[in-house]
């Protein structure tokens, strides 16, 4: 399993989750968990995904999602899970 954390932040609009999920499905990336909130009109989402079965390399996927974010008007970041694991788990 290769876990990646995807964070999406920006002004709320219709279809953000749909478009991100459509992209992930098309690249065979499995979503393990989603949490999402709206604070003062700002959309805030975190996804944990498994990229093990995806043919896309990390850098390409991160680039695709960044471009998709620009299209929707939100900021999308991809980070490997280890940075959070290392920092918050002993």
């Amino acid at each position: 399993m290769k876990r990646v954390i995807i964070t999406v932040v920006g002004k709320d609009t219709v279809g953000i989750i749909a478009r991100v999920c459509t992209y992930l499905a098309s690249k065979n990336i499995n979503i393990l968990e989603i949490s999402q909130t709206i604070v003062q009109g700002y959309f805030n989402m975190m996804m944990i995904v498994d990229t093990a079965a995806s043919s896309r390399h990390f850098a390409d996927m991160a680039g695709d999602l960044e471009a998709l974010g620009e299209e929707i008007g939100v900021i999308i970041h991809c980070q490997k899970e280890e940075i959070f694991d290392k920092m918050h788990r002993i």
Partner: protein
Amino acid sequence: MINFLEVSETNEMIEKEHLDVRTITLGISLLDCIDSDLETLKGKIYAKIYEAAKDLVSTGEKIAHEYGIPIINKRISVTPMALVGGAACRTEEDFASLAETLDKVAEEVGVNFIGGYSALVSKGMTPAEELLIRSIPLALSRTERVCSSVNVGSTRTGINMDAVKLLGEVVKETAECTRERDSLGCAKLVVFCNAPDDNPFMAGAFHGVTESDKVINVGVSGPGVVKTALEKVRGENFEVLCETIKRTAFKVTRVGQLVAQEASKLLNVPFGIVDLSLAPTPAIGDSVADILCEMGLEYAGAPGTTAALAVLNDQVKKGGVMASSFVGGLSGAFIPVSEDQGMIDAVAAGALTLEKLEAMTCVCSVGLDMIAIPGDTKATTISGILADEMAIGMVNQKTTAVRVIPVIGKGVGDTVEFGGLLGHAPIMPVNPFSCDAFINRGGRIPAPIHSFKN
């Protein structure tokens, strides 16, 4: 599994509080390049460094991208050049030409600094070491990326006062040689006592002779993260204060450990150490002085500053040690002046003097760092400042260092702009009384009584 709050906390540290990995430094031994022919030596040095470091910058960028953590600098440290060049160099010019080779290969592989134009002379100087030290002004005025350091004392050996005297003159001469750039050469020259072999931070990095052929050392940073954490415990007692610093240092260091392991794996170079330092930059919110203020001081330099810094330095180490399998280098809080906006403000307000900075160096990780002094300061006075700082290191069994910049043509009341990470600084007054007769004695100061531990 990782939750939303943890992800937000990490990313806020990175985006709002300047959490970053300050440097990945690749240490390279040049001992196997030694040759008595200067041109052959240069060729071997160039080839070895190029081969070892050609992927360093791209690897650093790849790691930064994958984990979303900025890695600010990628750097190289090499074996002290006095040892490498001793057999081939007959003149100062010869040594300076080796510095030019280092500069060229550093530019070629894309690193911003290469450290190791160094000599280790804590007890005595060989002719080659003395020649290298005398060539420093020439080398630093002809190169962009080369950093120089000289270790002139240790707890085990005492202080080499001949080297201290010589380096007072060398600092002054380096300032003269780079006067058209506000004596910038001196920002790349550090004088040490108890210099560590594995320090990843410039200008004092070199690859010690106790190290393996190649090694990856990583320096973390994050003064802004500590400051923000302390904002949440205002008014609480020292137990809470210390616990907060420790927890934060732990988290920051874990990121350094991760990056070090990844870099080691990708470059196929053994992992050396993580240096757990709080290294400030001139950016707002990236200041060690601001942490001291958050702890309850009006300005860095106010009474209580030394105690506050002692607490900070100790807790950073306690938190960081558990987060990494190997720690080393300088590890602690850096207190440079020009590279820390809070320090600059404190000097401008009259709260922070050279003498108070000296007291602070007894409890911080290094020493008098990036301090601009009047250009007409005498060489013997600079030697006196060096000797004081070396004595603190020798007696307290800690690393101390001096990086002062006598800015030629400027005096107290002026400011100097170094640019970039080196920042800007007001010129600080220096005690005007003479120490000529003390410095001119020559010889060495014996090791202190507590060095005899066998």
